[in-house]
């Protein structure tokens, strides 16, 4: 039995292996204005390449810069140093090639669940009938049938998060950036949503960058787990999960990966 492959990546680039690079992050740092500059350094000299159709998870303690890194890939936050490129083109702002599920669901409170999902489709000028049908498919995908016309404040936290996932999926982006999307879900729904996400990822060939606090979620989903450390936010290690899918959550191999990653975080 092979032991998990762990690579130490301090200054070197965390590489995507053989696949064509989709996202290239080159020596990127983000310094937020702060009285103590060391405290404001959310991301420090991070290099990471994500391959076409790769599923990469970011894992690490609270405050290690996962959200900040995701925001920079999204083009919502500009790096203070370094470069980020998508398909070889530098990121200058948000674009239709990227979709994001935020840590807080960030739904529009004045729109019902289904109207939230259709928000981007309206912007793209998709005709109403087609829009509705597409949104309805997504509603059943995230198991919210019957809640279409509820406002966000009438939904539970987990339901809101699922609406946010459907909203990001509606535009069918090549790159999905997901910030703890399943954090508010119960374990059963969470497992179901993980399966759904993998199905979408495999069917529609997407590149996914997935932030999570759950080690087992990262092992179950990812091709590669990037472990980050805080103060300043850095990539500490990367673990390649070279196990064919569907993966067994209770296998010995799974437990080995779990232990390796846990040690990497500490």
């Amino acid at each position: 039995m092979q032991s998990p492959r762990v690579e130490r990546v301090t200054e070197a680039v965390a590489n995507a292996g053989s696949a064509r690079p989709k996202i290239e992050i080159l020596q990127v740092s983000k310094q937020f204005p702060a009285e103590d500059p060391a405290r404001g350094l959310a991301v420090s000299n991070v290099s990471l390449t994500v391959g076409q159709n790769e599923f990469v998870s970011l894992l690490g303690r609270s405050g290690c810069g996962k959200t900040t890194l995701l925001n920079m890939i999204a083009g919502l936050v500009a790096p203070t140093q370094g470069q980020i490129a998508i398909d070889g083109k530098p990121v200058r702002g948000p674009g239709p090639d990227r979709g994001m599920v935020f840590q807080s669901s960030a739904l529009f409170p004045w729109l019902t669940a289904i109207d939230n999902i259709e928000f981007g489709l309206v912007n793209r000028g998709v005709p109403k009938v087609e829009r509705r049908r597409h949104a309805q498919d997504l509603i059943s995908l995230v198991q919210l049938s019957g809640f279409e016309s509820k406002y966000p404040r009438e939904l539970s936290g987990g339901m809101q998060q699922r609406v946010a996932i459907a909203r990001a999926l509606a535009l069918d982006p090549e790159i999905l950036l997901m910030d703890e999307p399943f954090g508010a879900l119960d374990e059963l729904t969470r497992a179901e949503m993980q399966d759904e996400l993998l199905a979408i990822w495999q069917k529609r060939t997407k590149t996914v960058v997935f932030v999570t606090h759950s080690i087992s979620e990262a092992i179950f989903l990812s091709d590669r787990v990037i472990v980050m450390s805080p103060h300043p936010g850095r990539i500490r290690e990367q673990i390649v999960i070279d196990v064919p899918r569907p993966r067994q959550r209770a296998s010995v191999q799974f437990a080995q990966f779990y232990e390796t990653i846990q040690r990497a975080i500490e």
Partner: protein
Amino acid sequence: MSDTLGTGSGPDGKAKATVAPGQGECRPSIEAERQPGWAVSRHLRQTGLPLLSVAVILAFWEGAAQLGLFDASTIPPPSRVLSTVWELQTLGFPRGSSLLTHMGSTLGRVAAGYALAAVLGIPLGMLIGRSLRASRMVLPIVTFARSVATLSLLPLAVLWFGVGEESKVFLITYGCFWVLLTNVIDGAKNVDPALIRAALMLDTSPRAMFYRVILPSALPYIFSGLRLALGLGFMVIVGVELIGTSIGLGALISQARTFYRMDLVFAGMVAIALFGLLIALGLSWLERLLLPWARESK
């Protein structure tokens, strides 16, 4: 005890029976509200109790006046106010100017000034609120203009616009405008940045950002500005009508005072209060209709 809390089963096991399966046992009050008896008593408490207290006060007032506890010419009893309202509507005061004429004229002036304030204040407030530089520049002006009591501008308004309708509409516009503007600016400023980011990730053009994110998000603020401004408009109108006109509720009250007709003063007050009540009800109805998602937030 366990019956009211709905936790344990009562001695006869009935406490549990009222809770529908799957509803959970920790929300007995919600279950209870569905029972018709409870609903009736809640309805009574919501509309009946206020009516009751008003009726009690009126009864005491009437009784005290009939017993001669106070001078009916300075504090006319409700029955007298009521007959005066009738007299005012049929005979008019001054002769020929019925209550409805006064009310219509007051309403027209408030509506004109209010509409003008809304047409100016809402777009301007949205623009200012979205520009940091503009809101910094405008802040001292707004603070100053707001703290100028509108009625203290009366002499100036007369000087600029004469004693006709223009000066009255101007003063109402002035009073409504600044309150409204402040609220609209607040609304435009307080858009949750997370929503802007979410929209940016959903292919939102700058134009769509304004109409589909910033404006709806500011709507509750705009509404509360509209409500405050309307209240202020009715406060200002009474003072504004003190000069240069004999028609309008403010004019009615001031003329009634010079003739020492306190019953007429009270009748005018009742009419103004009626306006306020009706308009407040109308606005909250409109708000519920237009902002169903913001319900229960106030």
